């Protein structure tokens, strides 16, 4: 990360928090809008076509390290776009794959990455249908950057605007493992944490009709995602600290580094809201995919996201401001 004196793009502009909103805002100011595509500020845009809803999304991936416990940049890029479609209620039809590779990158690593892309693509029956490659001079890029785009078809589009007072908040599994695995690897910490990176199209397909909102807690973690849901649905969300599932090692690492685990990203989980009446059915169904699935909070009238702590107090959960910063004290 380099810092400079003029107003420039900062690393925090890419961290999914308030500054990312500012960055996207700046870009959209210049881009002229107005088309038949509907963009709900979710991860994709929707095009109504012959009575069907076509969903289109794209995502660029850089990650350090490119190989991490539980996955690699290829798996991440494939799951990421499949999940963006799945979170909008769409069944993915196909993906595009663009690679920008730094000169000197090893063939062996490239093959490894492509094999993991292929594995997910085969398993989920989401073909890679088009693509592009570029090679940059050494030093112009850190190893490899992958961009995937995807098209899917939805019966109805899931959004973040539908949460209602009285709904329950559920998670599809334990949270934060992707962020924790990457942090651990950067610190050279030896532990059992593996990234939770995985496709979500199957579990969400089973429960989508019952959900009032759904979102995968990637950048900015649970804290960022639920603030977005609360804001767009104009509701208040109260989480129960005791009920949010975290692997013990994830909690320990977060506490060691002084990082808020609510801000740790997951790459294979979603959080959703569902009416209290349907919650049990939905959770039971999700438990077949991940035993840690469960209710973690409730939706109330009002605004903002709050956490009922284990002490019994209520604290406000803010959208993370930028990069997760370990303590030095």
């Amino acid at each position, binding site marked *: 990360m380099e810092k400079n004196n003029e107003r420039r793009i900062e690393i925090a502009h890419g961290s999914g928090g308030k500054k990312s909103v500012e960055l996207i805002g700046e870009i959209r100011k210049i881009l002229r809008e107005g088309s038949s595509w509907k963009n709900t500020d979710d991860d994709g845009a929707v095009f109504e076509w012959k009575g069907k809803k076509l969903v289109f999304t794209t995502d660029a991936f850089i990650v350090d390290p490119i190989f991490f416990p539980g996955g690699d940049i290829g798996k991440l890029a494939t799951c990421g776009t499949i999940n963006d479609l799945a979170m909008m209620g769409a069944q993915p039809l196909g993906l595009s794959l663009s690679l920008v590779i730094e000169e000197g990158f090893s063939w062996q690593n490239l093959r490894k990455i492509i094999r993991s892309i292929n594995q997910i693509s085969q398993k989920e029956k989401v073909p890679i249908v088009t693509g592009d490659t570029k090679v940059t001079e050494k030093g112009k890029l850190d190893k490899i950057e992958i961009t995937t785009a995807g098209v899917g078809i939805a019966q109805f589009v899931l959004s973040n605007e539908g949460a209602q007072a009285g709904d329950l908040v559920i998670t599809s599994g334990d949270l934060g493992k992707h962020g924790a695995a990457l942090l651990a690897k950067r610190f*050279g910490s030896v532990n059992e944490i593996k990234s939770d990176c995985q496709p979500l199209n199957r579990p969400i397909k089973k429960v989508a009709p019952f959900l009032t909102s759904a979102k995968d807690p990637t950048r900015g973690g649970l804290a960022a995602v639920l603030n977005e849901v609360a804001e767009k649905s104009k509701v208040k969300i109260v989480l129960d600290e005791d009920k949010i599932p975290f692997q013990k090692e994830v909690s320990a690492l977060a506490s060691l580094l002084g990082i808020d685990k609510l801000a740790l990203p997951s790459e294979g989980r979603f959080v959703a809201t569902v009416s209290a009446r349907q919650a049990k059915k939905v959770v039971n169904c999700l438990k077949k995919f991940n035993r840690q699935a469960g209710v973690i909070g409730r939706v109330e009238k009002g605004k903002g996201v709050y956490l009922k702590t284990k002490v019994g107090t209520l604290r406000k959960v803010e959208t993370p401001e930028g990069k997760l910063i370990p303590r030095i004290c």
Partner: protein
Amino acid sequence: MKFSFSKILKEIEKKASLINRPLTFMELCGTHSQTIAAFGLKKILPKNLSLIAGPGCPVCVTSQRDVESVAGLALAGIPIATYGDTLKIFDTSVLLKKNRGSQIDISVVYDITEALRLKSQKPNLVFWGIGFETTAPMSAWAIKKGLTVYSTHKKFFPAMKTLLQNRELKIDGFINPGHVSAITGTKIYENLKFPQVVAGFEPEDVLQAISWLLDQIISKKPRVQNEYKRVVKREGNKRAQKIIQEVFEVKDSFWRGLGKIKKSGLVIRKKYRAQDAEYVYSQLLRKIRKKIILPPSACQCGKILQGIYRPQECPLFAKICQPENPQGPCMVSVEGACHIEYKYGEK
């Protein structure tokens, strides 16, 4: 046995009512302040008991002279590496503001080995070593491996003594830092004759420490108790102490808010001066420091660090001073009292 919050809170309530006068405990680690704020502990403590944050945030206590010195090195084209929490302090640098637009190279590292790796790409890299006994051993280790360091490392205990000498400040007990104590041990606190409990960072730890401090006050037996036994030993971490002593010598140091504190600075020994940025760039630093003229600011970090003011008592707090636009280090650091109050406090 599962820890019962309601039980300990009742105990605290009872003990505080027995003492029946206003009591103030100071938590000495930025991470304690985070726990207290994140779990809203101030809201559930008895009315006559208040907690105030002490100078336990390394970025906050670093003097502006040091901030400007490192900024000056960066402006002279020297690549700098430091910890993430330190990065935003450059937003407060007068020298950088004056030289807006100049190319500078400041990298963030997560741990010291990353700085060593960066040095192989940028041979004249300077690492800004910041922090108390917790991070000093890592810097010492890296200095021995050939990393050039600008040291603003500090010993924490001298600051505690200084706080107790301040008559403006009325503190009834200290919650001693957990991580620092893991290195220094608890023995060094013993001759202070003041109620102290070394505590960990879970809300359970902090509440237990408060309960024990109340016991000490009731029994009129001030002493050092260790609540964080799972990490902290009386003798501390001997290996870490040894490497600190081997690489650093103890000199006076200037702390923001607390002024000059005798024998509190960790300065790189002559033996390692080829790795000491203060020595390697002595002429350049002299020139830089001549240029430092700090404009007056209404920022009350100094008073806040001593526990004399609370963040809300600063005229800038939450107005022009916010995490996105910090006016002083207490808002810059994630461990700073103002940053924590802004993030978790009632607005």
